[in-house]
């Protein structure tokens, strides 16, 4: 629409788009769709690549790979049972500790214990805990945590040598320091997600309990925690997913030993640490086996994360009726 010569030209404040603009718009629209789809392709590509490289080992070793307990690249004998055990065992201890501390921290951060200002400071400090790279925690674990734990571990081993958890000496890296560092690393996840679940509890439920004369902790134990329990459980499952996949701290602190022991002070190994320790120098056959191990890790973490997300969705849906 060009202004005619008779009327003065008006400022083109509002006008329909030109053909060029419409064309660019269509291209842009297509481009964003393509990039959105590319993210799905990326995920599919990861699964496909791991599957493709793992398939020779999968067909060669079959299910025996998961139940075998020898990892010997010279004899082409591969099994990951000790690593699966180590992954579950270290994650169990880490989740126990991080679950307890994380839920406590979430309560302190959400139930009005602190002045609003300190609440924000404390929340940022917990987030800082997540910002420190895991390799730095590993370094700290080797040079600070292990020496710190050694006297206590030696005392426990001397006095309770028959108790399975304390059956060996802590010579250096081991299950206990690995689990402790793992706990530090999943603490921020557990805290943040369970804090959200607690904050989602409708305030009038707590107010009603206060009105009946309940003390703060009576409200927490009988109203807040039961109501938020679904979300807290989801937080623990998501924390578990992180623990299964955490690599560096375990590669540095678990001890890289191809066997499983119930003792907290003996060295062990995990799936992720196995990949980190063996991949750089692996020959052709070992790479295949490692890809198989990566596939197992991928499936486990995928399952745990999907279950965790579903629990979170259900937990928030369950609270809807209370609003």
């Amino acid at each position: 629409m060009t202004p005619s010569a008779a009327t003065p030209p008006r400022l083109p404040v509002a006008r329909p788009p030109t053909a060029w603009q419409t064309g660019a718009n269509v291209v842009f629209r297509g481009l964003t769709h393509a990039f959105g789809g590319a993210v799905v392709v990326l995920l599919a590509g990861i699964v496909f690549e791991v599957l493709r490289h793992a398939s020779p080992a999968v067909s060669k070793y079959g299910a025996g790979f998961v139940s075998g307990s020898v990892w010997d690249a010279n004899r082409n004998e591969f099994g990951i049972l000790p690593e699966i055990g180590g992954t579950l065992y270290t994650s169990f201890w880490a989740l126990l500790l991080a679950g307890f501390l994380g839920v406590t921290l979430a309560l302190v951060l959400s139930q009005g214990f602190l002045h609003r200002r300190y609440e924000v400071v404390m929340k940022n400090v917990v987030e800082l805990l997540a910002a420190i790279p895991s390799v730095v925690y590993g370094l700290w674990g080797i040079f600070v945590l292990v020496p710190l734990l050694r006297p206590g571990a030696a005392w426990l081993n001397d006095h309770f040598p028959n108790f399975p958890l304390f059956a060996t000496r802590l010579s250096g890296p081991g299950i206990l320091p690995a689990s402790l560092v793992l706990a530090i690393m999943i603490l921020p996840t557990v805290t943040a997600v369970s804090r959200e679940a607690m904050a989602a509890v409708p305030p009038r439920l707590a107010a009603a309990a206060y009105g009946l004369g309940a003390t703060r902790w009576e409200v927490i134990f009988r109203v807040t925690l039961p109501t938020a329990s679904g979300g807290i459980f989801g937080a623990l499952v998501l924390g578990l997913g992180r623990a299964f996949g955490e690599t560096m701290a375990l590669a540095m602190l678990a001890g890289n030993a191809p066997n499983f022991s119930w003792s907290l002070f003996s060295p062990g190994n995990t799936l992720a640490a196995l990949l980190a320790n063996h991949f750089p120098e692996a020959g052709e056959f070992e790479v295949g086996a490692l890809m198989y191990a990566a596939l197992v890790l991928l499936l486990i973490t995928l399952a745990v994360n999907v279950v965790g997300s579903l629990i979170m969705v259900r937990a928030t849906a369950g609270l809807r009726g209370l609003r």
Partner: protein
Amino acid sequence: MAPPTTAGRAGNNLHLSLGNSRTLLDRVLTLLAIGLSLFALFPLLSVLYMLLVRGGELLSPSLFTELTPGAGMEGGGIGNAVLGTLIVVLIASVLSLPLGLLAAIYLAEYAGESKLGTLVRFAGKVLTGMPSILAGVFAYALVVVTMGSFSALAGGVAMSVLMVPTVMLTAEQALRAVPEKMRMAALGMGATRMETTLRVVVPTALPGILTGVMLALARAAGETAPLLFTALFSDYWFEGRLGSPIASLAVLIYNFSGSPFPHLVKLAWAASLILVFLVLVLNVGAQLIIRRPQEF
């Protein structure tokens, strides 16, 4: 929600006293909870203290200008690792930022509740929860096996896989926070969807988008597992070849932490100090951007 802390004067029943077992239990649990919270922060303080004490020992300009020393040798620095980390993060950014940002625009502006949108969001969440070492396995299979050698490019690919979901999901949130009326106003003026997005929505959401980008960069810079068997390590300066191995701070810390030579361990602490400093600056920067008050 603040509980009633001051006792009413009306009757004894409302009086809070530690003689009352319920009140006593309440106070004990409060103390316990706050004590445990402080205990949980002990590792952070200890890590920061050790970094300053042991990492600060070697801090000098030559740390940044010299190459990593060989086993058993004194002197040297971590210059190649500092530069290497920056280069790998740069490669990862080039690969992941366009993908993450355009996918975020798709999710926030076009996807709605469509099937593809739900699928993309699901893929993003799965990628966020995926162990970082699997990104390394992917880059190993895709780049290292194909090219036949460990390389800076493989390291960048592995890291970009980790950055994409963070960038995408945070940018989507930021774009969604832009009020609908701003889009309506732009469209009403005759702007196309593209112009509305690029000239109104994205600039408005920029602080939030930048926060996500910085958090993704911070995460990438500290990641070690995906670099171990993709970028590997190199004792030399980066010579512009993306197809050869490259040093990084994270892998240096891992390699030197197990070294029997005290000097190399000291270098690992110095590298940790620099890496944590870098990561914290990015994190605090991200926090400052998002805190800036915005008015619509």
